[in-house]
């Protein structure tokens, strides 16, 4: 019994050490999973909004598998094989958001359900922040270009966005910043507009509600109820801002090293 327990703890312990990563790569992986999930939600708009039919692929393990598949297609690389606790938790949170929306998704009387990529992402971010694991993900843009006031940028984000406007940076990682006066890792990834984004953020001619209509009858209100921004594929569309308090990142990393209870805690999600 003692030997078995010892072996179990040793296994958990060694697994944890294998997961140690550098913060920039770690955050970058998180952002890639997030963007893949949003793209996946977009690809499934027809299924989400159809009245009736089999929607089981939008839930549970199948949903996770499909996100991984989308990740491979979108980023042209394999899904991180040894997912960290946080990555696992992120995928589980996505499943929870879909589960919470099950009644809506399966509502046979409603067409447009409003479960668009931005709303999905907002719910996942909110849920993650509620779990108290120290990661904050936000989609933001310049003041005046943000639809939801809860996504207004802070000073660091405004500075980061200005850098992107004046350079060809791909992403920005900052390990010297503070958030709420707490030392943090911060990361900003500009959103590259896909054609599907223009359905809502583009010109009235991109709006599916205007399909087959005369120009004189075009509405500039998109299907979600917001005025369209007239963006093109070249427009700056803000981006994804990810923050992890250093202490929380350290804690995530050290959880496994520190003691056996934490090892168990650390791996609980992976065991499910």
């Amino acid at each position: 019994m003692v030997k078995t327990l010892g072996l179990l703890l040793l296994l958990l312990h060694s697994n944890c050490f294998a997961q140690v990563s550098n913060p920039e790569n770690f955050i970058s992986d998180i952002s890639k999973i997030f963007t893949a999930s949003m793209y996946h939600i977009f690809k499934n708009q027809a299924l989400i909004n159809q009245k009736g039919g089999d929607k089981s692929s939008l839930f549970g393990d199948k949903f996770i598998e499909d996100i991984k598949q989308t990740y491979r297609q979108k980023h042209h690389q394999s899904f991180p094989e040894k997912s960290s606790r946080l990555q696992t938790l992120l995928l589980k949170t996505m499943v929870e958001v879909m589960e919470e929306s099950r009644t809506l998704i399966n509502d046979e009387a409603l067409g447009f359900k409003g479960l668009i990529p931005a709303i999905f992402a907002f719910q996942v971010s909110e849920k993650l922040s509620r779990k108290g694991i120290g990661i904050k993900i936000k989609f933001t843009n310049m003041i005046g270009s943000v639809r939801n006031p809860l996504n207004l940028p802070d000073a660091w984000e405004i500075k980061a966005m200005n850098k992107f406007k004046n350079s060809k940076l791909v992403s920005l990682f900052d390990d010297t910043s503070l958030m709420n006066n707490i030392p943090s890792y911060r990361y900003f990834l500009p959103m590259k507009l896909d054609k599907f984004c223009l359905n809502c953020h583009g010109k009235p001619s991109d709006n599916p509600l205007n399909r087959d209509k005369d120009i004189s009858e075009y509405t500039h209100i998109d299907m979600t109820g917001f005025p369209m921004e007239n963006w093109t594929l070249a427009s700056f569309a803000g981006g994804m801002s990810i923050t992890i308090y250093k202490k929380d990142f350290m804690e995530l990393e050290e959880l496994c090293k520190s003691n056996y209870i934490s090892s168990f805690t650390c791996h609980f999600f992976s065991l499910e």
Partner: protein
Amino acid sequence: MQKQLYLFIYLSFFFTGVTLAETIKVGIVDFPPHINFIKNIEEDKAYRYVDRVLKGIYAEVEFIRYAREDGIAEIEKGSIDLLFPLTLTNQTLRHLTKPLFRMVPGLCFKKENFIPILSAAHRLKGLSIGVLPGTPVLPIVKDAGANFIVLANNDSLAKGIEMLIAEQYVAFYHPNPMEVYHDKNPLSKVLACSKFLGYPSGVYIAVKENMDEKAYQSIERAFSRALEINSYEQYFWKRNE
């Protein structure tokens, strides 16, 4: 997952050396779909979650049903140890630090009037919205220029929904619309609800004021760990358990 919850609770207490004490009295109030007095509450997930966590510390957990106000009166008297699920907007009851779960306010509509994304607040301008007196309405809804119809003092949420169906107004402001809009509620055939995402509020487990500090700390620690590892929300939304 059930087995893992048990396993976690067992291991947590095994390693921390907490011993089982006597009986704890837990008041429980109606809070559908989490606690539904119309059905067998022992099958409700909130009941099962709280029961399992407490059974890690107490030899016996005694649940007593109350109407919300009666439950609050009992916990204030100290005749029960805990009371849940409870929103604490107007109360200053002692409670566990972490909420058991959070709820997000929203609007319910008849399906033909459904507005799916409420951050498009301009769509609420001039909309007639029923609201119960005393319900804290989010500033973004107030600022949107909606036309509020305040119900009578003795009206309930159920009455508010009835009036929505009778088209006394276009939308009904619900502090937790997911109580109404879920698979098991037949009204979901007629209504649909959406949420004000980003405005959650906590639903707590209240604790009697004079509970001794050692007992409080052991309950606090047990729930804190359980929520961190396998949150109630995660447990609730997981199907077929």
